[in-house]
Every structure is written in structure tokens, then in C-alpha cells.
């Protein structure tokens, strides 16, 4: 009897519990469906805003380098310690290559987008600067017009020089990438993607105004117009680019301060050009990159020597590790027109500030820790600073005279 009673109450309890459980399940299912709908809506909106960023921590030091430094009062003094981009043999310089950037991209409507990209670099005391800020409009899916603040597409790697995760080196070949400071312009560009047979192309034309501060003065480049054509064929990429501009540069009269009068050498809508040819081969394991560039400015009395620079990089990927070797060099074409200048000395000082000559070998390696993060190390040995008419340390604080001029760098790069 008690057994039967227990059995009945047991069955009753179970069926009540089952029906309660079923109701609960319905509720939970409804809740899950609502959550799923919300998530789906969220994934749609996450497509509307895209965030990307990059971070680099880089460090650099040199071996002990001696050389000639020009003292304003004493003239050239030999046997002085020489630094490279502010790095010396005493300490690791953690500022020069360290930086962070952040990019926000949104679609205003189906055809229009807006982009803001902010950069804070150690070189610039981490003051945040607006690198890119533009609106883009898709005239057709393959034809895009952009207007605003854009980074000039001077070199093959120009537009992403700060996102160092994108390339194998820590420092881009300095003789080439130091020729013309990479800069932003206010203006517009038009990019057309098309293909001829199996070859894909991207033709880009730019127009705008660039403001380039240098140690000589502030260059203002008006009507900066350029075009570049990138072509892709299998593992090959080629790039040609040519741009012209009208350059203004005000140089001061320093006679009141006991210096020279530099005003006759000012640039007033002077014609300048920049040409570059580059190529890349990447089959997944072998990487070859090369660029040749030339910069010319029609300056009074020819005080701006035409600079020609080139590099060739070869790398070989073995899984996550890629050792690479780079040769890079720059040479300036110094003319004799300073002789006819009002002051050959003043003209000569401008030439010496703008002349560039050096060569280097860089041996480096990149190790991909995981997708989005890479470790890098490299050593650059500089040589040949003196030619028939030129003697210049380019990025060094003086003219190195030591036999071994070596710069070491380490970095960790991330892109996200």
C-alpha cells in the first residue's frame, strides 16, 4: 500500500515537475531567441564601424662612432662622438621607433565612408597628430574619390610607414625613405582599380597642398600633383610614381645676427619633382623588394642637389622566421653653380645641409610570434660617406670617420 502510494505521488510529482520544466524551457528558448536576434543586429552594426590600430616598441643603439663635427665657432673638429638619429653607444634609445596609431572607419551611407587615423610617436613626444582624415566616395565599386587629409603616396611603403608590422624591417631603408620626408597633404585623390587580362592595376592620382617642416625651414608645396600605378601579376607587384609641385620656402637674412643673408636662396613657386620605380616579388617564401627614387628641386644657384637613392632587399621565410638582407644607398648630384651666387659660402652651407651620400648593408630578421604580432632585430653597417664633391653623414650628427659604423635595432610590432 505504502509502496503504491509512494509510486503515485512520485509519478504525480514528476509530471508536475516536467510541466514546470517544459514551461521553463519555453521561456529560456524565447530568451535565447531574443538574445540571438540582438546579437545578429549587433553584428550588423559592428560592420558599420571598423577599428584598427598598431603599436611598435623599438629600440636602437650604435657602436662607438667617431667623426668630424662642424662647430659654428671652430669649424670642423675631428674625433668627436657621433650619434645616429639621436641614438648613441651609451644607451638603448627607446623613443625613435616607438609609436601607436588608431584608425576608425565608418560607412555614412552605401557609397560614402569616413576615416580618421591618429598617430602618436616617440619622435614627436607622443603628441597625437591627425595623420589621415578623409571622406571617401565610391563613384563605382572600382572607382573611389577621397578628399581630406591624406598621407602622400610618395614611396611604395609611404602610406603605411608607421604600421611597421606591414614590412620586414624596423627602419625603412633610410637613404631612400629619408630622401623626402613622408608627409600628409590636404587634398584629394582618385583611385581606379582595373585589370588587363591577368594583370590587376590600381591607378591613383593626387592633388593637394603639403606643408613640410625640415631643419632648413618650412617647405610649402602648392599644386602638388601626382600619379602612381601599381600592378599585380601573380607574385609580382610593380609600382611607378611621379609627382610635381610648386615649392615655397622663406629663408632668412641673418646678417643682423652676424650670419649670412640667405634670402636670395628662398624658393618661390620653384618646380620640384619626385619620381620612383619599385618592384616586389613574393612567392610566400622568397621575398624581393626594390625601389629607386629621385628628388629634384629647381632652387636658385642650384643649392638643392638632385638626390638619387635605391635599395634592394632579399628575404627568405622559414615558417615564422624570415631573415633578410638589404643594400641601400643615396647619392647627390652637386653642381658648381654656387660659384655665381651672391655668397658662395652661404650657398655652400645650404648645399651641405641638403646633400646626402651614404651606403649601407642591413642584416635583419622578423619572427611572427602569432598573427598580428612580430619580433624584429636588425643591424645596419653604414659606409662610403665621401665622394668627389660630397662628404655627408646624412642621418648622423656628423661625418663618421670610424671604420665600423653599425646601428643595432630591436622591436616588437603589433597590428590589430
Amino acid at each position, binding site marked *: 500500500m505504502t509502496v503504491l502510494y509512494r509510486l503515485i505521488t512520485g509519478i504525480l510529482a514528476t509530471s508536475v515537475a516536467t510541466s514546470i520544466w517544459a514551461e521553463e524551457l519555453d521561456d529560456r528558448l524565447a530568451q535565447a531567441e531574443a538574445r540571438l536576434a540582438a546579437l545578429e543586429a549587433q553584428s550588423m552594426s559592428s560592420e558599420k564601424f571598423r577599428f584598427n590600430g*598598431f603599436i611598435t616598441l623599438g629600440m636602437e643603439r650604435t657602436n662607438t662612432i667617431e667623426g668630424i663635427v662642424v662647430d659654428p665657432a671652430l669649424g670642423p673638429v675631428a674625433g668627436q662622438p657621433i650619434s645616429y638619429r639621436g641614438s648613441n653607444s651609451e644607451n638603448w634609445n627607446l623613443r625613435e621607433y616607438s609609436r601607436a596609431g588608431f584608425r576608425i572607419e565608418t560607412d555614412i551611407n552605401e557609397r560614402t565612408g569616413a576615416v580618421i587615423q591618429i598617430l602618436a610617436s616617440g619622435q614627436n613626444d607622443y603628441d597625437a597628430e591627425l595623420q589621415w582624415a578623409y571622406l571617401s566616395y565610391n563613384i563605382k565599386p572600382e572607382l573611389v574619390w577621397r578628399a581630406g587629409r591624406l598621407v602622400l603616396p610618395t614611396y611604395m611603403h609611404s602610406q603605411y610607414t608607421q604600421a611597421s608590422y606591414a614590412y620586414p624591417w624596423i627602419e625603412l631603408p633610410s637613404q631612400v625613405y629619408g630622401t623626402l620626408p613622408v608627409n600628409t597633404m590636404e587634398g584629394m585623390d582618385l583611385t581606379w582599380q582595373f*585589370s588587363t587580362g591577368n594583370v590587376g592595376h590600381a591607378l591613383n592620382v593626387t592633388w593637394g597642398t603639403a606643408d613640410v617642416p625640415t631643419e632648413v625651414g618650412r617647405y610649402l608645396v602648392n599644386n602638388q600633383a601626382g600619379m602612381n600605378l601599381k600592378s599585380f601579376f601573380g607574385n609580382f607587384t610593380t609600382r611607378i610614381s611621379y609627382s610635381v609641385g610648386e615649392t615655397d620656402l622663406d629663408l632668412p637674412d641673418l646678417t643682423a645676427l652676424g650670419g649670412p643673408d640667405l634670402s636670395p636662396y628662398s624658393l618661390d613657386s620653384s618646380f620640384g619633382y619626385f619620381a620612383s620605380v619599385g618592384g616586389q616579388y613574393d612567392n610566400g617564401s622568397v621575398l624581393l623588394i626594390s625601389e629607386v627614387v629621385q628628388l629634384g628641386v629647381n632652387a636658385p644657384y642650384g643649392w638643392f642637389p638632385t638626390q638619387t637613392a635605391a635599395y634592394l632587399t632579399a628575404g627568405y621565410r622559414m615558417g615564422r622566421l624570415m631573415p633578410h638582407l638589404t643594400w641601400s644607398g643615396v647619392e647627390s648630384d652637386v653642381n658648381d653653380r654656387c660659384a655665381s651666387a651672391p655668397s658662395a659660402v652661404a650657398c655652400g652651407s645650404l648645399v651641405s645641409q641638403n646633400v646626402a651620400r651614404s651606403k649601407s648593408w642591413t642584416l635583419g630578421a622578423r619572427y611572427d610570434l602569432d*598573427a598580428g604580432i612580430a619580433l624584429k632585430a636588425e643591424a645596419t653597417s653604414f659606409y662610403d660617406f665621401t665622394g668627389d664633391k660630397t662628404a655627408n653623414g646624412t642621418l648622423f650628427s656628423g661625418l663618421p670617420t670610424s671604420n665600423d659604423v653599425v646601428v643595432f635595432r630591436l622591436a616588437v610590432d603589433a*597590428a590589430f
Partner: protein
Amino acid sequence: MLKKAAVLLTLLMPLFAQAELVIVTNQDSPLSSLNQNEVKQLFSGQLRSLAGKPVQPLDLPAKDPTREKFYLHIMGRTPEQMRAYWTRLIFTGQGKPPREVSSSHELKILLGSSAEYIGYIEEEALTSNMRVLYQLP
């Protein structure tokens, strides 16, 4: 040389053993087929429209083995190499990587929702509303 070939063969073995990969789109798409070069250009952002119509490639989640297989096979690139490649395009505003779906389930839903989408799946996962545009050799 022989050793290298043997190593390569061992590396590629799993690819042969598994099901073939196919490039698919919606059954309503005006496209009938793609060649290998078009597939490469599409998934590296160099091709934004086909036959005058905009196209949108879809990527499986980052660690999905089908995705790794696809890029290794069609582009000869590892996930790290593709990441560096896209870094170049993203920060120059020249392109954005394929939209990344959360699962192959979402891929199928998206493919069914619009003829603009193009994705890669294992041949055995094909459904009736998909059209095969390319079969990986």
C-alpha cells in the same frame, strides 16, 4: 631536393586527405564561374566587382582550419602573411579584408541572403541554394 619534396608532400598530405574546397555564391548570382586568378584577386581585395556587379568575399573565423587551408592553397600564404598584407591595405585605406563570419553556419546564411557574397567551403557542405564558381585543384 628529394628531402625537400618529401617534406612538402608531408605538409600537403592533410590537404589531399580532406574534402576538396569550393568557391561558392548564391544560386541567383549572375556569375557562372571564376578562374584561379580572379579568386586570388577577389580574396586579396584587388577585385571589387565582377560582371559589373559589386562582390563581397567572406572569410571564415581566424583559426578555422578551412580558412588556413584556403589561403595556403590558393595564395601560398600563411595567416601571418595575410595579416601583414592586410595591414598594408587597411592603413592606406586601399581596402578592407573580407568580412569575417562567426561560423560556417553564418557563412551559409549570408550566402543565402544575397548574391553579392562569395565564400569558400568544403565540398561536402554544399547546399542546393549555392552555386560552385571554382573548385580548388
